[in-house]
């Protein structure tokens, strides 16, 4: 079994109104000095098999075909 964590984040320059709202929430809680918050997504994926390089290329294909929208998002794949 291969375990991986995929992280999807908004590209620089793409407005993140949810991140802005979270910034407001943190500041309301009294956390000062929060310069910015960007909200993203995390996917924990378990794959059958032991071939880590095949898994990595499959995971990248999954990101490009579904998990990330490359118009607005970047992704990274970490095998655990």
């Amino acid at each position, binding site marked *: 079994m291969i375990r991986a964590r995929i992280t999807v984040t908004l590209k620089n320059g793409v407005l993140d*109104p949810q991140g802005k709202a979270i910034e407001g929430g943190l500041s309301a809680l009294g956390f000062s000095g929060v310069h910015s918050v960007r909200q993203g997504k995390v996917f924990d994926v378990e794959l059958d098999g032991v071939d880590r390089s095949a898994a990595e290329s499959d995971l990248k294909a999954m990101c490009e075909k579904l998990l990330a929208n490359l*118009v607005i998002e970047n992704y990274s794949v970490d095998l655990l």
Partner: protein
Amino acid sequence: MKSAVVLLPGLNRDRDMIAALTKIAGTPPATVWQTDTSIPAVDLIVIPGGFSYGDYLRCGAIAARMPVMRAVAEAAHRGVRVLGVCNGFQILLEAGLLPGALMRNASLKFVCKEVMLEVVNADTVFTRGYAAGQAIRCPVAHHDGNYFADAQTLARLKGENRIAFRYAGGSNPNGSIEDIAAIVSEKGNVMGMMPHPENLIEAAHGGSDGRALFEGALDMVA
């Protein structure tokens, strides 16, 4: 002209769309289910609004990968007219049939109200029933209608006159870049829009500003 409406779990504007097409064309559209791998021979395919797959992952993301969308893409490449409204627009973007993305409204609020639209390009099959520069009323109802495209894509959309409608008179309800409400494909046969023209087609709706869009798409205008 024959039409078909694509059905997916979680859509909820399909009945409104079927009613509008039936009233305007005089005959009901065919319906196509998400697992269908072919679409009957029609001139217009419509993907209605709603919340396909509960908006999981991203609005329209799962729907865009269903088998029926491969058939929609093939039809679009053959030149069949395709109209995506609201969730339908999100699905067309996720399927790569139109460029850009629709993000959470800048206000973070669901908006359900009437806006004004300016007809930017009246030379598409969908907008030829209007005059360029004309302002029309149209309802909107969405949470993720904030259109985004990178600078290169935007320049291309403008250069190729592919912005069909803009929100007019300061009525942009969602923060869309350049007030974009609807865009068309390179060949002009695919249009995606956030507003709901199917909900303003007869007196009972309080107006019929949306009717000409369907008349154009169904070849019912001179």
